């Protein structure tokens, strides 16, 4: 039995020690917001936070998170994530959307550690793959979320010129 906190709530699962957290979340606990992309920590689609640290859950055995706090895209009480989500809507970031849970979790960890990242900081922290190529808007939305401390509702779509500025 492995017990950990998932988005603030204690959960217990009776699975093999080496089952990756990703599959515990998806197939055992029904939290499908965290995505499977490669299974070898290369793409970042499965990024969650473990005790606040962005972690690729596809290679993290569930036994290693015993007693720890796991946060996923489904969490509701993270102000930084909420700001980023609002910016993601405002900047119309997602296309197919599949990689965006991982992108948002990586960006949340970035802003928690570095509230005003430069482009170089973003490049270094955000190594997730997006095959739709949403990177330019990801970058813009991270900067916008960093600058705005109170993005609550989704603003209207910024114009092309604003986004390029």
């Amino acid at each position, binding site marked *: 039995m492995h017990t950990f906190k998932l988005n603030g709530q204690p959960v217990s699962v009776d699975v093999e020690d080496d089952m990756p957290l990703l599959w515990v979340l998806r197939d055992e606990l029904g939290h499908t917001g965290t995505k499977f992309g490669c299974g070898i920590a290369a793409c970042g689609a499965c990024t969650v936070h473990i005790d606040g640290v962005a972690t690729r859950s596809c290679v993290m055995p569930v036994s290693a998170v015993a007693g720890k706090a796991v946060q996923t895209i489904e969490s509701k009480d993270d102000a930084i994530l909420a700001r980023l989500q609002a910016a993601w*809507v405002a900047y119309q970031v997602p296309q*197919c*959307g*599949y990689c965006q849970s991982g992108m948002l979790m990586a960006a949340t960890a970035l802003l928690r550690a570095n509230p005003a990242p430069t482009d170089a900081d973003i490049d*270094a922290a955000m190594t997730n793959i997006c095959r*739709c190529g949403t990177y*330019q808007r990801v970058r813009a939305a991270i900067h916008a979320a960093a600058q705005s401390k109170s993005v609550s509702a989704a603003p209207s779509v910024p114009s092309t010129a604003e986004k390029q500025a």
Partner: protein
Amino acid sequence: MKTTLSRRQFLITGAALSGGLLVGCGKPSAADRLGDHSLLPVEGGEVALNGWVKIAPDGKVTVAVPRSEMGQGVLTALPMLLVEELDARWEDVQVEQAPVARIYANATMMLNVVPFTTDDDSVLARMARASVQRLGYALSLQITGGSASVRDAWEPMRLAGATARAMLVEAAARRWSVAPDQCQVEAGQVINMKTGAKLGFGELAKEAAELTPPQDVPFKAPSQYKLIGKPMARRDIPAKVNGSAVFGIDVKLDGMVYAAIAQPPVFGAKVASVDDKAALQRKGVLKVLRIPQGVVVVANNWWRAKQALAEVKIVYEPSPNDQLSSADIAKKYKDELAASKGFSYGDKGDADLAFKQAGKVVEASYWAPFLAHAAMEPINCVAQVKDGHVTVWCSTQSPSLAKWKAGQVAGVDSDKVTLHVPFLGGGFGRRLEVDMVEQAVAIAKQLDGRPVKLLWTREEDMQHDVYRPAALSEFRAALDAQGRVTAWSNRVAAQSVSYDSVRRLMPSIASNTPDKNQIEGAFDIPYEFDNVTVRQIRPETHVPVGSWRSVGHSYNAFFTESFVDELAYAAGQDPYAFRRGLLQKHPRHLAVLELVATKAGWGTPLPPGRARGIALHESFGSWCAEVAEVSIEQGQLKVHRVVCAIDCGVVVNPDTVEAQMQSAIVYGLSAALFGEITIAHGRVEQTSFPSYDAVRLAQMPVIETHIVPSTAAPGGVGEPGTPPIAPAVTNAIYALTKQRIRSLPIRL
């Protein structure tokens, strides 16, 4: 390029025409595709006014969308078309997936198989276009592809909105005993212009539905548009930022089990024996199955299925492909190119004579590799076969084929198949295929009614794709003493995607005949040379090939735009000026070229160590030009900036056009920088993202998109941004270093 018709082209066109004639004449009209209320399921007092729109008593409007959402914004752009003409309030609009039915066929996508240039308005070209569209309609090809969703929906969905609006107005006019022209419509209400009385759509829908739909309802003038042309927030985005969006991989059903599959690593190999003893001992494993495509483990959790699969000992029969390598395939291409003159859709002028009289001949040979799609969501499909009924949940670009294939595998009629299409975690052409449906239904058949989720590993996804074919292109050009190009000769060897796609679906009718998709973007170059000959050679290999974002354009644009660049230098001219001078009869090409040059500051100084490259390409009914700005530092290529100009006709959602240009450019740039699938011992060598990498944020150039204002019919936007990026970058490399990149991916 207008050409005289060759005998062979005549025969092919004749075949296309007779195919079309078998099923009727002429393009299916928007009125043919209005459909009736019986197509759409209703609940809660809703009524359907045609096959596209339902109205509920509270005024909620539901639009049926027959295309799959894979990030290209169809759940927003398509309803915009209908709601524009209906004049409902956008806030009252919801969308639902349309069922599979003929009116939803993507007839327009079929235009991509017609071997005539866009500006060819001859009777024959027009007849061929009409016939293939009629054929696509007759076959009910409900497909999301060919950058054709908006193009295809443009008339039917606006007509559905306009006709529904007219019916609502008529119903109101009858209530008020006034003439319909005494009514106006605003924000989901009909207003009596005399009395100011108002009736909401919800109050009128039931009476409107009893009226005969009027014919020939006029469309709005573009100046009256309230939605079309405005940047609208995409409907699918909110669910995609909080984990609630359901992709195929996320489908959850009571009692569902999970399946992992091992397909033969060598394409075409057969399983000889399976030892599943160890696998069956593992926790959670329910079954080990053999299906025609491979060996499957079914378990109560996907990871358990995958782990157990690794313990199944599978022996494959020796295959004639076991020793094939990329070098063998490249040699086969070269040999076939050397041995065959190739097929032409029609030459222009007399290239042979021009070469004899040439002052100078320039020659070059180009190569593009196999490419995988590598969509972020690995291939998957959920299926249940129970009580003679099949239910499939699949993120597919091909609902009609998915439904047909599911019925075929289960041995039931298509009307016993229910298909659900969740969000697609990327498509790019990969999800046009229905291999995952075939497999999932074959597995579900053996599970006594339990639903099963088949999921491939990333490795399986990368090694069992249908690949963008490798391509070899050979050019010769003749220049006269003044540096004027007098002849252009191009021969392209590449596997036929059309042949391979049909072969997978209906092997009995497939044949390796001339394929426009193989040579698109090469046979129809816009440059006004007097003598042109372009030919295709279609080798066969054991590697399956399929549609990859922009299909033949993806390699032919790299080839032709690189070689045009070579000719500019051979003629001693600026690459932009050289192209301009050859496009005087091609105004839409010229306009995007001039726009991109202006916006990119073509010819203005750059910081030391940087250079620009330019490329231009027409595809999928749109014209796109790009300028890339690059540098090379310590041997590392960096693309700093890409300026893109697009003429896609009338723009429906400009924010989506901008997003799609970024997307298409990044997709093409990833391929140009990293993309290469190689074959060793008959199998794909690459396994996952490290060996088949993609552009990430650190490599991302700044992309600036400029849209040419237009009132012409809409063109595609999903694909046209991809073809020009590779040559824009390699042309910039040449400008910087005088190194001509003639093979992809780029290696300095």
